[in-house]
């Protein structure tokens, strides 16, 4: 099956149904999880109603990192095995990663203000997510700047891997920079044990966002495939049938 899926033509045809079901499942799940978090969970003892932001913020932040890791792995696969689909994946996932990271950052800012009284803190987590955003942006910009597809694919792979090495180093360096330099005034919700009541909708949204983003990336890959293989017979045939 994997062998078949590595061929653009089979992938394009097979992904269509996947996109449909992933979208359906993801959107329904997100609707259920968000409604649950917004209307059926009681306000939290310390954070009050602002805890409801968590149901979007935590999944977005988690997805942002997972998308980056996936892109870096795809980059390694592309460099080692020259697999074309790995590059198609990188091209499709990078803008999605940028937007997911932006959502995580914005929701983090909006959560920080009511709960800690500040919009932004320069701690290891916030800094690394912000850098992650610029890395995603760099991936998109680099691909756009390089005209030749082969060269762009290689360059983006290298940048993705370099960035993946960079993120944990940033976490450590910020931790050493801030904790030793000025005692952290706020622990980001680390000491607060969260009750299961609050966690269930979180899991629903987390899983649903995974599913939805997987569907979106697959859909983006299909668009990219049509663009790349415009001149081939299977794309022409697909156009004729639609």
């Amino acid at each position, binding site marked *: 099956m994997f062998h078949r899926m590595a061929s653009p033509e089979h992938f394009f045809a097979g992904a269509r149904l996947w996109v449909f079901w992933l979208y359906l499942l993801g959107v329904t799940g997100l609707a259920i999880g968000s409604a649950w978090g917004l209307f059926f969970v009681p306000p939290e003892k310390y954070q009050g109603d602002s805890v409801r*932001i968590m149901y979007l*913020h935590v999944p977005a932040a988690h997805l942002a990192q997972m998308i980056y890791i996936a892109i870096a792995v795809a980059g390694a696969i592309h460099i080692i095995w020259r697999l074309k689909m790995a590059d198609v994946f990188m091209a499709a996932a990078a803008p999605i990663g940028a937007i*997911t990271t932006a959502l995580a950052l914005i*929701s983090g800012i*909006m*959560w920080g203000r*009511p709960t800690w009284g500040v919009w932004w803190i320069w701690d290891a987590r916030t800094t690394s997510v912000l850098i992650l955003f610029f890395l995603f942006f760099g991936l998109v910009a680099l691909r756009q700047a390089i005209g030749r597809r082969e060269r762009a694919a290689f360059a983006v792979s290298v940048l993705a891997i370099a960035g993946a090495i960079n993120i944990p180093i940033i976490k450590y360096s910020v931790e050493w920079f801030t904790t030793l330099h000025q005692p952290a005034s706020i622990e980001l919700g680390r000491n607060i044990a969260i009750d299961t009541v609050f966690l269930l909708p979180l899991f629903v949204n987390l899983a649903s966002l995974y599913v939805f983003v997987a569907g979106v990336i697959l859909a983006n890959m*299909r668009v990219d495939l049509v663009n790349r293989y415009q001149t081939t017979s299977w794309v022409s045939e697909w156009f004729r049938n639609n």
Partner: protein
Amino acid sequence: MGDHGIYVWSVYAIGLIFLGAIGTYPHMALRRLKRRRREDKEQR
């Protein structure tokens, strides 16, 4: 939701816009590709 309502609702509004945008983009792009192909055919 009291004081926090504005923060909660704006986060979910932004989330809806962002996710809606990335969700619809590929379908619009495919449709645009189809239309362009059709126009090319008609010109020829």
